[in-house]
């Protein structure tokens, strides 16, 4: 018994985890009967299927398969930068408004691209903030402030 396809093994473990979380989170929902199903019936059924498929994937992983994709350091940096940018945007939009948030988020993403120079990054972020302003405020007339100051 040896895992030969780590992709299927990880996917199987993930499905078992998802199924378990949903079973646990839905433990207080009433099941009802097959004729009159409560809110908990269908989710429990699907969560059970999730456990089952997880087991199937674990079984499949004992044979050679597609494996996993490797992304290296550059990939990890890109994912980290995008995650940070989205978090900054989410926290910034209520405090400073749309334009500064878009500027900061774009700048953070460009940091993951080593080919860019500092001036290029700033220019790109400014253009991006302008595009966001143009689409969402000028063209769509969204009721959200372009700039804000929380203090």
């Amino acid at each position, binding site marked *: 018994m040896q895992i030969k396809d780590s992709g299927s093994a990880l996917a199987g473990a993930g499905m078992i985890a998802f199924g378990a979380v949903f079973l646990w989170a839905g433990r207080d929902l009433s099941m009802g009967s097959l004729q009159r199903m409560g809110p908990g019936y269908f989710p429990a059924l699907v*969560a059970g299927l999730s456990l089952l498929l*997880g087991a199937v994937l674990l079984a499949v992983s004992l044979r050679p*398969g597609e494996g*996993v994709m490797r992304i290296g350091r550059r*990939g990890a940096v*890109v994912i980290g930068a995008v995650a940070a940018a989205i978090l900054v*945007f989410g926290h910034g939009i209520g405090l400073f408004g749309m334009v500064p948030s878009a500027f900061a988020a*774009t700048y953070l993403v460009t940091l993951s*691209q080593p080919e860019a120079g500092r001036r290029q990054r700033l220019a790109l972020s400014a253009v991006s903030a302008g595009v966001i302003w143009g689409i969402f405020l000028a063209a769509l007339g969204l009721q959200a402030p372009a700039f804000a100051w929380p203090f």
Partner: protein
Amino acid sequence: MDLLHNFYSGIGIAFQPLNLFVCVAGVFFGTLIGALPGIGAIAAVSMLLPSTFYLEPVTALVMLAGVYYGAEYGGSIASILLNIPGTTSSAVVCLDGNPMARQGRAGVALLITAVASYTGGTIGIVLLMAGSPLLVALAQSFGPAEYFSFMLLGLAAAGMMGSGSPAKGLAMIVLGLLLGCIGADVNTAAPRFTFGLTHLYDGINVIVVAMGLFGITEVIFGMMAPGRSTEVPRVSLRSMVPTPEDRRRAVMPILRGSTIGSILGVLPGAGATLSTFMSYSLEKSLARDPSRFGKGAVEGIAGPESSNNAAAQTAFIPTLTLGIPGTATMALMLGAMMIHGIQPGPAMMTQHADIFWGLIASFWIGNAVLLVLNIPLIGIWVQMLRLPSLYLYPTVISLICMGVYSINFAVADILLVLLFGLLGCALRLLKCEPAPLLIAFVLGPMMEENFRRAMLMSRGDVATFVERPLSLAILAVTVAIAGGMLLVSLRRRRAAQ
């Protein structure tokens, strides 16, 4: 004739100046986003969806149809010129499209792609108009059991007919169903899986799921590939003119491809992908010299591209008449319709006849606008591909954040889109395709509702699904597809060993 009259009234709606304008805008922005390497039609449609909230329903759908076509074509440009296929169907077009580009015939390949997709789309639309009333008539005898079985068929086909392993595809379906359970229960309004967050009470917005799983993930993976710029070939308008030989070779494959696509497209789940492969292998087996395939054969582009688009049109038949989407893009479109207060289904053709026919006509117009707009503009798109990835992807991340925020002005949605983006990355690393997940996410709540209703009507007797003949027939097709796919995958495994 009824059909012509209906289409005529639909054209009248779609040709209103505002609708025509948004269609052109949709095609333009759709191509712009779709031409970014690695970014597909689902991501493009979801990104531009929030900007249609302020429009009338028909106008919004006309724009989305344009976006859809534009993004598909933009994807072909990127995949033919750079050999980076974004979707399974463009992977097939790549087989001969990229060799043509390397022979300096990228222009011809792109023109044939556009003409083939237009022809396939038009034939598909004619069948869509003719076939929809038939399916509506059939849908009159659909009860909850039939609806449930039909959705099961769609999910099984979508999960198992992808390019990866069937077990992973089914896992994606189940994951989509689980995520679809989040939110208030339809019958009792009891909150489910909201983890105490009031924001989740209404469920997760389908746009958030699509933008995260497709948009964020595709941008991240697009940025992982280091910058490219020089190897993009030049394409001028003059280089797009095909030789008489090209034209002769393209005609029959386009017609055959359209036929295959139209028939398979009705099958929910994976009709488009399947028909693309079938068309390619058919053309290869019919060719006098099959060895030309893979080295830049015109037939290898014309057939699959037209079948893909014909299937995309006829895939709309179950979406519109039964409210059951066949592809992930259609699932997103269905979500868009529901946001605009339109419930697709058998009643739509009678109650919202103007929207129904306007929508069908708009698909044709989107297709035609694509041909008129994108051929003269080809230089711009190719020029855009020369830009290092650095210039475009970071802006798209800001666009996604703002687009998600504009749906409900909820910061929680921005955090959710990040979560789904990370999930999308994990799925890609594990080589799981996210498209079935999106279909299941949209279908899940409908499936549950019909399952519960069917059980209520049969007094808890599960046998109702096989006792009703129509439901039994649908389930038989489902079992046949599932069995067939299992056999194929087992044989593939054995061949690999």
